[in-house]
């Protein structure tokens, strides 16, 4: 473990930590600009109040809550996907899991932060701690998200330990940090056993927690009596949407870092193909849920529901609705569904389109319902202000910045898991596949004929 030879070609994965190119500084600079815009926007909002946004009566929620739901949705990229793939023992997961987990942790902070941005009195945010009440779905969110955050940080950290140990032994930077975080990892059998067991348990724990997070996020809407929100389907609908957008975000990040850090050897077409197919599956699932959601509203034909329904289908929100349908269904179906178009570029375009589509989905869940209240008061409209745009750009930049900085400290692809795949994966898979098949001494055909 000590020498570079043991690392072999995987030493390439440490290069991004060792060397810093000009591209990095440019990227950080650009992202910092975005963050600064966000900070400036928030400063304006703090001084003048929420009035600087485009919010009004009755559209009292807008970009911030949309971003909250969207970012929390993206967070499902990670932990959930990596946990499911780990549990399913999908071998192709090995270079992907780390990236997915990082997305989760980074984006959860930003998602939860958007709630603070949305507060009229952020100075009183601590009231939630002092006088919180569990009757409010917001408190369910707070609890669920804090559990998910704790869990996903831990879940990101566990598989990092062996890699940190490698860094401790190979890198000249941040020695103290790596030594502390490596927890005295030696790669002993017992340590490996402990770690494997912990990772396995976390993978099991994290899945229900992640599902609970997006379910209670949906409850913020579905627990009210508002038309278009008060729906039992919202929990699973949000979870499916979250995984959908999570995969898309993951693909985008994978492609960015593949290009930036030259990881073509690790992130191969096959990974994108598999993730793309997963994305396609989710796209169908999402479409099914959307269909089920709207067909029940349409068939029920309740006047208040229909006001919101027509606002989305033909009214002032129709452009967002149909763009969403195109982005979330038509484009992925074409670019991934048709084998000829399923190139890396095709998958990238589909992923970007899904991210936009899912953001729009969050938006048109929130705004049309609020702008069409039950009572026949004037219907509202909503146009975000520059402050809201600024904070949105700020949030996305911060997300990117966090991610970029992470790659400067830790390998973005799990070195030990790749190696494990090389060393034990083959035999395991062969064994596993064998176990799937009928035992050799029996002949299935004759058995079938007999039966």
């Amino acid at each position: 473990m000590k020498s570079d030879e043991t690392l072999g070609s995987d030493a390439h994965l440490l290069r991004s930590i060792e060397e810093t190119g000009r591209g990095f500084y440019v990227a950080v600079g650009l992202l910092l600009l975005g963050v600064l815009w966000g900070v400036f926007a928030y400063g304006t909002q703090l001084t003048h109040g929420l009035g600087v946004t485009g919010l009004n009566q009755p559209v009292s929620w807008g970009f911030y809550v949309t971003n909250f739901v969207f970012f929390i949705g993206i967070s499902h990229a990670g932990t959930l996907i990596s946990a499911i793939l780990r549990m399913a023992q999908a071998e192709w997961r090995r270079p992907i899991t780390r990236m997915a987990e990082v997305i989760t942790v980074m984006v959860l902070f930003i998602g939860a932060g958007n709630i603070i941005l949305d507060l009229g009195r952020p100075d009183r945010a601590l009231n939630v701690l002092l006088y919180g009440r569990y009757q409010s779905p917001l408190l369910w969110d707070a609890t669920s998200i804090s559990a998910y955050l704790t869990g996903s940080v831990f879940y990101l950290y566990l598989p990092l330990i062996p890699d940190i140990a490698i860094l401790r032994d190979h890198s000249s930077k941040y020695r103290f940090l790596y030594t502390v975080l490596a927890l005295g990892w030696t790669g002993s059998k017992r340590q490996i056993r402990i770690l494997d067991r912990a990772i396995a348990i976390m993978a099991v724990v994290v899945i229900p927690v992640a599902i609970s997070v997006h379910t209670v996020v949906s409850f913020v809407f579905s627990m009210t009596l508002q038309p278009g929100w008060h729906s039992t389907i919202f929990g699973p609908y949000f979870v499916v949407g979250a995984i959908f957008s999570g995969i898309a975000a993951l693909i985008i990040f994978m492609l960015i870092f593949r290009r930036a850090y030259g990881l073509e050897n690790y992130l191969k077409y096959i990974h994108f193909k598999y993730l793309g197919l997963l994305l396609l599956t989710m796209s169908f699932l999402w479409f099914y849920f959307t269909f089920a959601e709207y067909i029940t509203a349409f068939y029920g034909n309740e006047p208040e529901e229909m006001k919101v329904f027509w606002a989305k289908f033909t009214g002032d929100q129709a452009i967002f609705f149909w763009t969403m349908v195109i982005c979330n269904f038509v484009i992925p179906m074409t670019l991934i569904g048709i084998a000829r178009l399923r190139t890396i570029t095709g998958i990238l375009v589909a992923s970007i389109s899904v991210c936009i589509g899912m953001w729009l989905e969050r938006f048109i869940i929130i705004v049309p319902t609020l702008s069409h209240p039950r009572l026949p008061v004037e219907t509202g409209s909503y146009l975000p202000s520059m402050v809201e745009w600024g904070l949105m750009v700020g949030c996305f930049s911060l997300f990117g910045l966090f991610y970029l900085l992470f790659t400067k400290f830790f390998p973005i692809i799990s070195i030990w898991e790749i190696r494990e795949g090389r060393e034990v994966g083959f035999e395991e898979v062969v064994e596993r596949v064998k176990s799937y098949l009928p035992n050799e001494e029996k002949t299935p055909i004759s058995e079938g004929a007999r039966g």
Partner: protein
Amino acid sequence: MARWGMVIDLDRCTGCAACGTACKAENNIPFVDPEESARDRTINWMDIIPAEEHGEHNGGGPMMPRPCLQCDNPPCIKVCPVYATYLTPEGIVAQNFGRCIGCRFCMAACPYTVKYFNWHDYRRKDGFHLYENPDVSTRPAGVVEKCTFCHHRLQLARERARVEKRPFRAQDYVPACAETCPAEAIEFGDLDDHNSRVSRLKRSPRARSLLQELGTKPKVVYLVREHQNEIG
């Protein structure tokens, strides 16, 4: 203990908006500037809204006053994360301006859209503040506010009864809108007292709750208009 309620007779109501104006004066409701108003940020605890729907953007129809409906089962209270809005023992849906964190969940949850947000600090310091009612606190930026059934008037009436060394009577307490209504269309009182005018009216066959199907059990009840069909 009393359970305060209101009956609004739409057959008497002329839609003149005197109740809304009285409410603004009584409760120090800030007028937002024209620019803010154009952004749909006007605060109207007692809003005048169309009583029937005439299709989208057609305007018109008879107008009716809409205060906070003071639900017995208020959807807004359930969702408040910090006890800033709560039901008092006498059934008034109260709003604690000092506690509110401004998350606007209650606004999103209220099916009657009676909750209003202070998008800016609308308190005026240009002379208008001299006309403020000293019994009602003004609201800072970033909090939600709503009709409180002129709760301060209940407190004042109680205090007055105590000073005058007599028991407090339900008729001592009337919100500003009910007091002002020139057509005497707004009746206010104790719903639990079966002999009170308000509870008798509430049992009238003309009585309707707004969005009754939601089960919010509003304590503000409307008496619908009688229609005489013989006029073609």
